[in-house]
């Protein structure tokens, strides 16, 4: 065996298999130490909430917290809904119809994650005294992004409309977010 120089020896096998074993084991050991920083079971358990809409009158807004983020829920007036429907899609940086942003039969309700799609500030427009910006919806004070009455971006640096979270009407006055 030792006369054939091209034949792999036991030592060749060991020097290959040993470090490979260590490298694979090391990489597998690394994963728990990375994954531990992902949301834990407690955080995942808070992934959905139920909201009672019955006290919210037309023209009023509430803010609820879902996964630590503010969710804007607005009972829009008929005027606001019509304004939103009248906008031409060509005028929108992130074209979406009003119907795509609401649930059929509940067009007055607008449910959005209240975080500006620019750099994560919370836009003004939920409280009565807030400035609602030039398009009558929401206005981000950080860098001047203006949203319309359907929460779509109309002006300023934000690239996308305010995000609509996954939600569903459980009854006419109760929704489940997440």
């Amino acid at each position: 065996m030792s006369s054939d120089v091209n034949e792999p020896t036991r030592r060749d096998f060991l020097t290959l298999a040993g470090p490979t074993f260590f490298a694979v084991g090391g990489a597998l050991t690394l994963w728990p130490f990375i994954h531990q920083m992902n949301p834990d079971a407690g955080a995942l358990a808070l992934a959905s909430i139920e909201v009672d809409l019955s006290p919210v009158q037309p023209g009023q807004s509430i803010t609820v917290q879902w996964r630590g983020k503010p969710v804007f829920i607005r009972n829009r007036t008929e005027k606001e809904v019509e304004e939103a429907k009248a906008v031409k899609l060509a005028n929108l940086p992130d074209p979406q119809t009003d119907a795509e942003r609401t649930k059929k039969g509940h067009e007055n309700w607008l449910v959005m994650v209240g975080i500006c799609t620019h750099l994560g500030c919370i836009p003004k427009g939920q409280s009565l005294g807030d400035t609602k910006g030039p398009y009558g919806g929401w206005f981000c004070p950080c860098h001047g992004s203006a949203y319309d009455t359907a929460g779509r971006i109309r002006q300023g640096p934000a690239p996308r409309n305010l995000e609509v979270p996954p939600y569903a009407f459980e009854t006419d006055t109760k929704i489940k977010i997440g």
Partner: protein
Amino acid sequence: MSGHEDTYKPGGPVEKWMDERLPLMRMMHGQFVDFPTPRNLNYLWTFGGILTFCLVAQIVTGVVLAMHYVPSAGAAFDSVQHIKRDVNYGWLIQPLHAVGGSMFFIAVYVHIFRGLYYGSYKAPREVLWILGVFIFLAMMATAFLGYTLPWGQMSFWGVTVITNLFSSLDEVIPGLGTAVVTWLWGGYSVTGATLNRFFSLHYLLPFVICGLVALHIWALHVAGQNNPDGLEVKSKSDTVPMSPYAVMKDMFGLSAFLILFAWFVFYAPDYLGHADNYIEANPLVTPAHIVPEWYFLPFYAILRAIPSKLGGVIAMFAAVGILAFVPWLDWSRVRSAKYRPIFKWFFWLFVIACLALGYLGAKPPEGSYVTWARIFTAYYFVFFLVIMPLVGLLETPSKMPGSITESVLVGEGHKEGGGTAAAGAVPAAPEHR
């Protein structure tokens, strides 16, 4: 550092550029690749590397746990359960740290007994040895502080009892001990304030240990390693390069150690702990039977063996502190107990005494347990203060080989006599790596 030939050759222009500015690679090559290690080292010499691994593992798992742990009296206990149940892989990382503490002590005790048996503390390695005693002290402090953090009943009452040791200073200057204890606690009993400062210090001390370990390794590389025959390196044939010889042996030793480690983590994560620590800390109820973690039991037994509060505390601290004086207590000119026919027996008796004290430390302090604890405590100190100097003077060492190479070749000769040795089995240290 140690005066062996510098064989580092930069592998390319980048390494050469770096070498002229910060010769880090040159130092690493000289100290951890080319470094000459005695060719007769046995597996007990792998524990230095194992301990380095333990330190790094404790810091890595500890930093991760601190990301999820809440150091407050109200939330600490629940946050540990949260880590074990909710955090991704928390069920693995928390026991790795808790069991890791025990594994660290198993390794350090083997390492210390190895040093005592083979005379690793003798000139020129006194500073190396004393640095080791400091590391041991810092480890004990870190382990004690860390055991507080789960805020169970054993945590709470362990802290209460151990911090109260300092109240014995009242016997020296009335009021001093009470003042010290109040200062340690940040209150009039162990409270959340105590927990917060213990958490802070538990996070700090491992980095102090890292610094001490760096000095320990530096001192080791100045004097060179001791070896089972306790002989100085005399020629090139007495050594082999650290890489791959010692490195591979260390890796193998570490792998075996990790199997034991993994067995505890996966099959018996709570075996080395106490059930009482699954009950949240209650300042109004002391558990029926308070015991420290197993690695403190011999010292705890010494504390309880002395029938005086201050005396017990002094004896306990002296039991650790006396190690620092061992280089000057041993008057023998021979390092290794392998060639000390009388000392060898006293050494093993000392090991038995330490194990017995560990057993007695876990037993209630009554009846014959106390008597035996006193006998073994007496032997513990007699070993260092009487036996070490006297046996060193009186015993006649057995015949020693002339060199490390000779000691190895004598062993080989026996094997060859049996006709089993492979052809070309290590006639001299290999010249090539």
